[in-house]
């Protein structure tokens, strides 16, 4: 039996007359799930905000002490280079790290209720995006402190980079969260991969410290143009179109692969969870 034939049969096996949920319900699931996440996190309002900033900020301080003070790397504006790398990297790594367990963590609902499951990773990614956006004022404060100002390019640069970053991590998240139901040790593998990615991505160092001979290899790392692009925007106030289009390419690729994996596997979720 051909694959297309089998797929066609699969579709006919379940017929539901009221059909799909309407848009309003879909939107409301998203709002309620987002509110849930934010409420749980920001229950004590100011403290919640401090916590979501504290993590990347503390990381930046540690790197600053280690590399600038103790190891005496002499990179100009190193504080700002760290901050503009660590904050977007946090969004990336938090999403990828949380993806593996996101369906497993909602097992009880997935087993019983038929709702669009892709909304769970979607909500998680948006949640981390909101945290990232809320941390931008902190970056601005540091820029001002070091006598720099946000540029006008932010007006269109921020939405452009947010969109690409969002698409990329959502695609990765869809794929990883689906596969993890079948291979539960994916989470461990991902923490190793993320560790590698962290040092191979220009988070701790600017692009121009990389030896020129190997610099173009950086494009093999999907996170590299993303983080480098954020730094160009946040620190130097310009949109690097090369970085942006490469990131967009990776984002489209990940999103396509992620959605395909999700589509193929999603009807088996309740069986294996």
């Amino acid at each position, binding site marked *: 039996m051909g694959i297309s034939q089998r797929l066609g049969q*699969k579709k*006919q*096996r*379940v*017929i*539901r*007359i*009221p059909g799909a*949920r*309407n848009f*309003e*319900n879909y939107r*409301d*699931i998203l*709002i*309620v*799930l987002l*509110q*849930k996440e934010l*409420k*749980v996190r920001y*229950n004590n309002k100011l403290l919640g905000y401090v916590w979501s900033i504290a993590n990347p900020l503390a990381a930046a301080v540690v790197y600053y002490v280690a590399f600038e003070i103790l190891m005496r790397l002499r990179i100009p504006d190193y504080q700002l280079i760290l901050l503009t790398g660590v904050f977007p990297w946090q969004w990336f790594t938090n999403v990828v790290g949380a993806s593996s367990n996101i369906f497993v963590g909602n097992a*009880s*609902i*997935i*087993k*019983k*209720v*038929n*709702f669009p499951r892709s909304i769970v990773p979607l909500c998680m990614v948006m949640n981390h995006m909101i945290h990232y956006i809320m941390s931008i004022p902190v970056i601005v404060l540091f820029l001002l402190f070091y006598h720099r100002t946000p540029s006008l390019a932010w007006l269109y640069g921020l939405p452009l980079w947010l969109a690409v970053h969002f698409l990329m991590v959502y695609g990765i998240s869809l794929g990883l969260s689906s596969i993890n139901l*079948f*291979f*539960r*040790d*994916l989470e461990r*593998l991902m923490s190793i991969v993320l560790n590698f990615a962290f040092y191979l991505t220009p988070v701790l160092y600017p692009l121009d410290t990389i030896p020129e001979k190997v610099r173009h290899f950086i494009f093999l790392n999907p996170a590299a143009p993303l983080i480098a692009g954020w730094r160009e925007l946040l620190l130097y106030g310009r949109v690097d179109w090369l970085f942006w289009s490469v990131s967009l390419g990776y984002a489209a690729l990940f999103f396509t692969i992620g959605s395909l994996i999700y589509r193929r596997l999603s*009807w088996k*979720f*309740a*069986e*294996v969870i």
Partner: protein
Amino acid sequence: MREPVISFYNVSKSYPLYGHIRGIKNFLFNFPKSLTSMQDERFDALNNISFEVYEGENFGIIGNNGAGKSTTLGLIAGVLKPNRGRVVVRRRVSPLLALGAGFHAELTGRENVELNGVLLGLTRKEIRRKMEEIIEFSEIGDFVNRPVRVYSSGMLARLGFSVVAHLDPEILLIDEVLGVGDIRFQKKCLEKMMSFKDSGVTMVLVTHSVASVMNICDRAMWIADHQVQMIGDPEKVVETYCETSGVPLNPSAVNKAAL
């Protein structure tokens, strides 16, 4: 004859036993074995079953553990797909979640009602309109504004039942979760379920309590060995089921028990 709202036509469902592939590491180290086990080792949960449930009916499903009752509910809810045969469901399905399963511990009762409601397919507007009614029915009082982690298990069950019961269910799926409230609340649930019958709500009840089947259901189905053994009058089905299991049925005890 009323219209069937749930129809199963020769439905079979088997689960692959993903025995060897608990992880990437194992999958790769046992690669040839993993591939064959993916295709061959399967566990049959339901084998060629057919039945229909009609609008407004209270339909009970009984059977031993592992007979395939919960798989049947999963198929109706649409979280599982059959391997063979066809499942047709003509109304919106609301599953009653097991004790607090759809609840988030840190959120208040009120927020959880909203969360549960949207997942069951309603909009926030519809939920808000029903909110006070739900809270009143559940009798949890001021606790509704506290996080559900401080609730007793009875309170969770009451809130869970109130949510599905009030959010205009069309087909209500209940999987063995009713014995938790106190007897007074059980009676209230029973009355609510009886009122569903008049408003055309279809109820599918999976339970081990033969008393519930006899008291609530209009028809019952007995599943054993992954096949339908008997469908029909609940008392007869329960009687046969009990005889086969070697547990004699005591009718006087059944009549006294409410649920």
